[in-house]
């Protein structure tokens, strides 16, 4: 069995979640605090779009922006000597774009669940906005944020459509687990496909169980 898809998938999902986790939280905080309802709706729509678009369409847009002959892709190539499309970084890019809405929406929901009176109380007690975020809002939203992070990780791990569009299916370089399953089946190698499928099922199950565990821990923590 070729282990490279497992490695590539894990590397991709891990690299993507580091970015997604923090950026998703930042976006969530930004949108939650927006004053204008209409601007809020539009921003929320843009951030959620990859969740509802067919992944191939999202991948198409990525290709359109980061393709080697496109301005941004060209900029990266000329200035940093980095070719994004059809390289490992493209798998990360695809995973980020597809998992960001998960992270953003979970974090936003978690922030909105926090009793606003806690934040008001912090303000009237003279706490700075910075410490209100880190000492009140973030800790009280943590369980929702963590389960959002796990969900986003799983989404990155299972990413197929957008990855196929912008990163291709190059064995040993951009072939992630879902793509490997597809390739095996396409080549008629059901035996090979089974192995990858099994790995994906086990990983996904662990992720979901992990998420439930986090929620469970926090419920206990809150009932102390």
């Amino acid at each position, binding site marked *: 069995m070729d282990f490279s898809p497992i490695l590539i998938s894990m590397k991709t999902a891990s690299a993507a979640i580091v970015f997604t986790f923090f950026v998703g939280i930042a976006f969530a905080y930004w949108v939650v605090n927006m004053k204008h309802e209409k601007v809020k709706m539009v921003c929320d729509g843009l951030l959620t779009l990859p969740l509802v678009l067919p992944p191939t369409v999202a991948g198409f847009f990525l290709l359109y922006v980061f393709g080697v002959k496109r301005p941004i892709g060209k900029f990266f190539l000329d200035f940093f000597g980095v070719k994004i499309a059809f390289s490992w970084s493209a798998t990360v890019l695809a995973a980020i774009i597809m998992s960001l809405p998960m992270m953003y929406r979970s974090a936003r929901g978690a922030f909105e669940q926090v009793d606003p009176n806690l934040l008001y109380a912090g303000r*009237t007690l003279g706490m700075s906005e910075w410490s209100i975020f880190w000492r009140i809002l973030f800790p009280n939203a943590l369980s929702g944020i963590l389960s959002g992070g796990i969900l986003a990780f799983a989404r990155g791990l299972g990413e197929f459509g957008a990855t196929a569009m912008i990163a291709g299916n190059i064995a040993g370089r951009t072939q992630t687990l879902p793509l490997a399953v597809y390739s095996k089946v396409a080549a008629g190698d059901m035996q090979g496909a089974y192995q990858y499928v099994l790995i994906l099922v086990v990983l996904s199950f662990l992720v979901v169980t992990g998420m439930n565990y986090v929620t469970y821990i926090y419920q206990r923590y809150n009932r102390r």
Partner: protein
Amino acid sequence: MKKLQVDFRKRLKNFDLQMNFAMEEGRLGILGASGCGKSMTLKTIAGIVTPDTGRIETGKTVFYDSAEKVNLTPQKRKVGYLFQNYALFPNMTVADNIAAGIRHAKRKDKRHRTEKQNVREQVKNLIEQFQLQGLENQYPVKLSGGQQQRTALARILVSRPDILLLDEPFSAMDSYLREELQIELDNRLKTFSGCSVIVSHDRDEIYKLCSHTMIMGEGSNIIFEETKKLFNQPRYMQAARLTGCKNISKAERVGPRTIRATDWGVEFCIDREIPKQLSYIGIRAHDFIPADVNDQRRENVIPVFPCGITKAPFEWTLLFQNKENPKGNMWMKQERGKEQIPEKVWVDQSKILLLE
């Protein structure tokens, strides 16, 4: 010098909130039905909500002035706010919650250690003062309502506020705990030198705790008066109703000393001058007294046509109409042990409230 001056307008979804009052010291109670903008008023004073126009100031500081474009952040207003649910931080222990209220001077690394020591000492003092010993490391979910309130108060007082705002301080409590905690809060507030504002929909609470009372109707303050005076001789219909007067009727003057209560179809004699703006009269439900059949009194006696009875553990309420001219209902309260359905009831002239 006025210690708190409030004058603002704020457009809300269902009505315009328009408040205008000033107080020197002591405690002001704001009494009003739920949803009339009481909490919103407190939030505006604290700076959590920004009004559309107006001016809010204390003797020392201008909090908000739409003309001068002043709008201090809640952090700078030094207002202590006791939230209805106390808003204790669930992720912090009692001690940490109290320590969160300490306003830090700008941190300088040299002094950091002494400051930490200082914080610990202040928290320890407050824990003792507020009888929270043994609960320092507990989380708020484990505390009783009273303990939560004390923790929240300690946290507020350690932040050294100039003004205290209390939003329905007892609404989250069981009724049997309430009275004890009212006495406790009363004593604690006596040690606070600034002025405080208490919002409530419970007239007893306001009567017990506040030197002055303000009554709010939909979106504005209608009456501002000394509490005792307001409850004993209300001048306005809304005041009478909110201070618990069950029987209120439209009224018209028929003679120099005679009034007809048009809703009840009853005429009353009054022992004092009838004010010109009179439009209502009020009679408290316990001021109706059963009159004997043989009673010789002629004035203010109403023959009773009973309509219904409700029985609470310690008192009866009788719903009745004027037998000779049945119209609107009147309520009469009787203590336990003295219940009866009288033939006639009588009311003392001086007990009749003349209202605008």
